[in-house]
């Protein structure tokens, strides 16, 4: 029953976030458009993954495909926030590296029908770095009147907390899965954190929409 609550919370938040993303995709600033797309694609991948899982078909391939796409979208969001040529090059370079590493991972370490936890771990580390960099940038140029009312703050905070946690989870993944009976609480915490991540994304999209309306009214 408890497990059902976490699943309902996770899918409920993701569905709501994707719905709001779909609704606001053309009404928010460009970085948040990518975030809307990310929510929609995440929902699609989770739907496909869940469907395959229900029919007892290995769904690892869904995550093999989804992980680089997800990172690409994050990279686009950060590229737009950084607005810096050097970082644009670094971001595109990191996308290429991640794809290459995924290929190496499939060939040497994890089969395509397994979830690419190694790559997910690397992706998480990269996103933590990008998140810290964005915090530094925002602090260096504090243009926002009230940072708590800015979508970028909630988005970036969520990325930092979730992916730092994700590094821990995926880092321990292989260790946990050696257990005969893996602790269920790990999955529940993961679902809870993921739910909060998408909740924060949804909030940041709404906050950005509010900001754009305010800016339009000022003009």
């Amino acid at each position, binding site marked *: 029953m408890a497990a059902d609550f976490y699943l309902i919370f996770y899918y409920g938040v993701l569905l709501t976030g994707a719905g709001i993303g779909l609704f606001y995709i053309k009404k928010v600033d460009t970085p948040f458009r990518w975030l809307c797309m990310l929510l929609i694609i995440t929902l699609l991948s989770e739907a496909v993954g869940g469907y395959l899982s229900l029919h007892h078909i290995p769904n690892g391939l869904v995550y093999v495909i989804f992980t680089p796409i997800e990172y690409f979208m994050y990279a686009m969001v950060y590229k737009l926030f950084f607005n810096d040529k050097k970082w644009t090059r670094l971001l595109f370079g990191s996308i290429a590296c991640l794809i290459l590493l995924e290929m190496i991972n499939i060939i040497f370490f994890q089969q395509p029908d397994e979830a690419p936890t190694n790559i997910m771990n690397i992706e998480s580390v990269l996103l933590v770095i990008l998140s810290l960099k964005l915090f530094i940038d*925002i602090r260096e140029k504090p243009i926002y009147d009230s940072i708590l009312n800015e979508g970028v703050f909630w988005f970036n905070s969520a990325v930092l907390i979730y992916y730092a*946690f994700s590094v*821990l989870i995926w880092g321990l993944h292989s260790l946990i899965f050696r*257990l005969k009976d893996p602790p269920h609480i790990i999955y529940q915490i993961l679902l809870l954190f993921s739910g909060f991540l998408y909740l924060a994304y949804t909030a940041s999209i709404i906050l950005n929409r509010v900001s754009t309306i305010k800016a339009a009214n000022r003009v």
Partner: protein
Amino acid sequence: MNEHFLIISNDVAVSLFAGMIVIGLLFGFIIYFLFSYRTKQKDYKLLQSQKEEIDRQKIVVEKTLDELKTTQTQLIHRERMASLGELTAGIAHEIQNPLNFVNNFSDVNQEMLAELEEELKAGNTSEALAIAADIKENESKINHHGKRADFIVKGMLEHSRSGTGAWQPTDINVLTNEFFKLSYHGLKAKDSAFEAELVTNFDYNLPRVSLAQQDVGRALLNVFNNAFYAVNQKQKKSGEGYKPTVEVRTLLNDGFIQIVVTDNGNGIPDAIKDKIMQPFFTTKPTGEGTGLGLSLSYDIIVKGHGGTIDVKSRENEGAEFIVRLPLQAGH
């Protein structure tokens, strides 16, 4: 097996605990970020307002600079007109000479034409031909002096015109002599009591050099005017025993044509020697000088022609201005 399970389980617990600490630290980081953001924001806003103020002041300064440039252009033009005024008397004197020639030869020609008519009526062809030859010669003299007057008037017009004059191969001796005389007669017209000895010592082997004739003429005029002004001032103080002399000599030295102007006036005090080329610096009484003369000369010779102006002076003994113009002046 149980032992193995326990070891792994403990590892997981320790790792989870460490992970939670890391996440706690990250929350701490975000809270720190929020506080530091506010502090930084205050500084940033202050900086922005200062930047806006600087931008505003920059606009004001740029506007002032534009106004200054306009004023400078007007002042330069006024200086030109003022020096033209000073030149007027000299020009009048210079034009008077060729005009006298023109008038005299014209009168002579009229008389000779009457004679020619008489000779022709008398059928004295050889005499008529001789008179005709004289008339022709007189006519060429009228033409020559007419052209000279034309040259002076054109020079005067060029002098009053704004902008840089045309560059053309120039005989420095002719140019120097022209403006030397104009300057002298200009001062003499203002002060009829003024008398000075004009000494010219030209190197007639100087090559022609390409330069903005009227600009260099104007620069030399300012130097000559100062020399004549200096000797005139000294004459007023010294009385009979003093013989005002201004000498100009030209020479070729090390790829440069030198025009050396020496006077035996009061000289330039050491204290102001460094200032005489500065704009608006003048020792003349109010209304007599704009203080732009030597400054303009400096601009024309040094900046315009890549030359130099040097001053040597001994107080109460006189001054020497050395204008150096490169043979290959660039423009």
